[in-house]
């Protein structure tokens, strides 16, 4: 029996630039054929992690395997991976065709295989007719396709993408998200995708690794990351949330500083300081007194209302805290500032984050 071998396996990898620790003791295994996103704010070490997989930076300590083979210190031309760079890095003195051919020529692939593979790659990213253009004669979206074709034509085992959609405008970006996903399904290889856009990560990937200050905080499916954040940082960074300071009361309940009791599962011992994460869109408003869901509600007073068209956001004062409630599909104007209300939610919507 053989264990399925991970496409990329990062073991205790740290990268230090002089006195900056860019990547701090990261462990990560990315499965074969997976669409994996590395997500985190600017400067958290996403690019550095990707560059170490590509071989453009070498880890200070730790080991790195690609399909079981140790490559931590191997030069980039000895790794079965290719990269789509943040600003594409197309060779400006070469045509689209020459750019796409580059990797194959470096590996001494000869015609007819060469032209056949190039033609396939060009067709795959729908660039037929553009072969003789130069990068500066292409739009941003087209340049991005050339960068994709230039990498994929080499049939890498892993494709690394560093914020490949960052330079595109919103509409094109959404189109390319779909296209990239479809492309990954077609070629069936592992994609490791870096982004600081959490919506993009949620929409595109099978699993997400959330990074902050060089550390990998949590790895999971989009649903796990969103619904069961392991830390305040993750809860706050992915989507919007209300983080309410609380103390663990007994198993299954926490108590807010105001004394209010909230039912929420936790394995943290009683007395610990924690936070309760309540997503604004999982909460509702009712006039005070009409709700009876004890342990799944908080009494407060509407302080501010923001009308967004498709949704209305209420800021509700609960004791000394402020809770955001997001309501969609509301008809009329059921609440006004100053109304006494109850914020309530379904069982299980409140999650405890310990650190």
């Amino acid at each position: 029996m053989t264990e399925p071998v991970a496409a990329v396996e990062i073991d205790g990898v740290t990268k230090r630039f002089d006195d900056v620790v860019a990547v701090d003791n990261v462990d990560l295994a990315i499965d074969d054929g997976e669409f994996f996103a590395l997500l985190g704010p600017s400067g958290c070490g996403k690019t550095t992690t990707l560059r170490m997989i590509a071989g453009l930076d070498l880890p200070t300590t730790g080991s790195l395997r690609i399909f079981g083979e140790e490559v931590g210190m191997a030069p980039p031309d000895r790794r079965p991976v290719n990269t789509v760079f943040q600003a594409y890095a197309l060779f400006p003195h070469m045509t689209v065709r020459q750019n796409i051919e580059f990797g194959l020529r470096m590996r001494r692939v000869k015609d007819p295989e060469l032209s056949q593979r190039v033609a396939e790659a060009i067709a795959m990213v729908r660039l037929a007719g553009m072969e003789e253009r130069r990068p500066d004669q292409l739009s941003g979206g087209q340049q991005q396709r050339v960068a994709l074709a230039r990498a994929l034509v080499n049939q890498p085992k892993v494709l690394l993408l560093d914020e490949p959609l960052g330079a595109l405008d919103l509409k094109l970006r959404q189109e390319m998200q779909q296209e990239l996903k479809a492309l990954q399904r077609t070629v069936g290889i592992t994609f490791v995708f870096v982004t600081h856009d959490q919506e993009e990560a949620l929409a595109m990937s099978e699993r997400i690794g959330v990074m902050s200050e060089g550390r990998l905080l949590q790895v999971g499916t989009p649903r796990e990351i969103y619904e069961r954040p392991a830390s305040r940082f993750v809860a706050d960074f992915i989507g919007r949330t209300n983080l309410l300071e609380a103390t663990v009361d007994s198993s299954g309940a926490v108590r807010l500083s105001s004394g209010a009791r909230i039912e929420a599962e936790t394995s943290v011992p009683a007395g610990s300081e924690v936070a309760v994460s309540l997503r604004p869109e999982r909460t509702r408003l009712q006039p005070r007194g009409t709700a009876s869901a004890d342990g799944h509600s908080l009494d407060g007073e509407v302080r501010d209302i923001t009308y967004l068209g498709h949704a209305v956001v209420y800021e509700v004062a609960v004791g000394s805290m402020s809770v955001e409630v997001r309501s969609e599909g509301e008809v009329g104007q059921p609440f006004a500032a100053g109304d006494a209300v109850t914020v309530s939610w379904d069982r299980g919507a409140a999650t405890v984050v310990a650190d």
Partner: protein
Amino acid sequence: MAGVVEVGLGRRTRRWLAAWAWVVFAFLYVPIVVLVVFSFNSSSRVNIWGGFSLGWYGEALSNEVIISAVRVSLIVAFVSTVVSVVLGTAVALALDRYRFRGRRTLDGTVYLPIVIPDITMAVMLLVFFAEAFKLIDSFGPRLTLGISTVALSHIAFNISFVCVVVRARLDQFDRTLEEAARDLYASAWETFRRVTLPLIMPGIAAGGLLALTLSLDDVVISAFVSGPGSTTLPVYVFSSIRRGVTPELNAISTLMLAASIALVLGSLALQRRRASASQQTQVL
């Protein structure tokens, strides 16, 4: 409102600027025109027109001393350009990419030959050669100033100019292009040859052209470090002009002018051809 006022002022300013441009243009080119016109003067008096003649060209081109000076100038220019392009580019690359001991000192001093006066440089080189010869001669050979000292001196100042021009190009060079090449399986050498070199080539060519021009142009340094038989054309012109301006000198100067214009046009044509040719050629 403000726009209307600005346009009115702008038009007057523009007219003045145009007139001024013509004045500057005349200032630059009238002497050249005078020189060229009088090189075809049949009279031996420089400032009196005596009819059209090519006589002075014949005279100049049959003058053995002039022919020899042209030969020296061309050899020195060619050798110093080739050597300084190679060395200057190497220095520029080293300063741009590597951190090594003495890098900052080198970075600061490599440009010195550009800023110090020619005459200082000339004296320095002369003293250097004298001392070096003394040292080497003590082992037997008897070295003298000649065409090689002229070439060495031109290399010495040309390296700096090539280095400056190439570094300006390297400053704009996007290093991620090299990383992309490495990521696409190119070795370090292939990366240099297929990506770095083609992209900094305009800088190298410009540096080479500058070196060629500076070498052909130099008087002061060449005059100091040349010996018998290694007189360059500018040095010859300068030394004979002290004996008075002759129409023969006008003819030589006109030829030099024609040569440098041909050089510039040639390099422009070369660049244009390369640009259109590289659109068709393959990577390999």
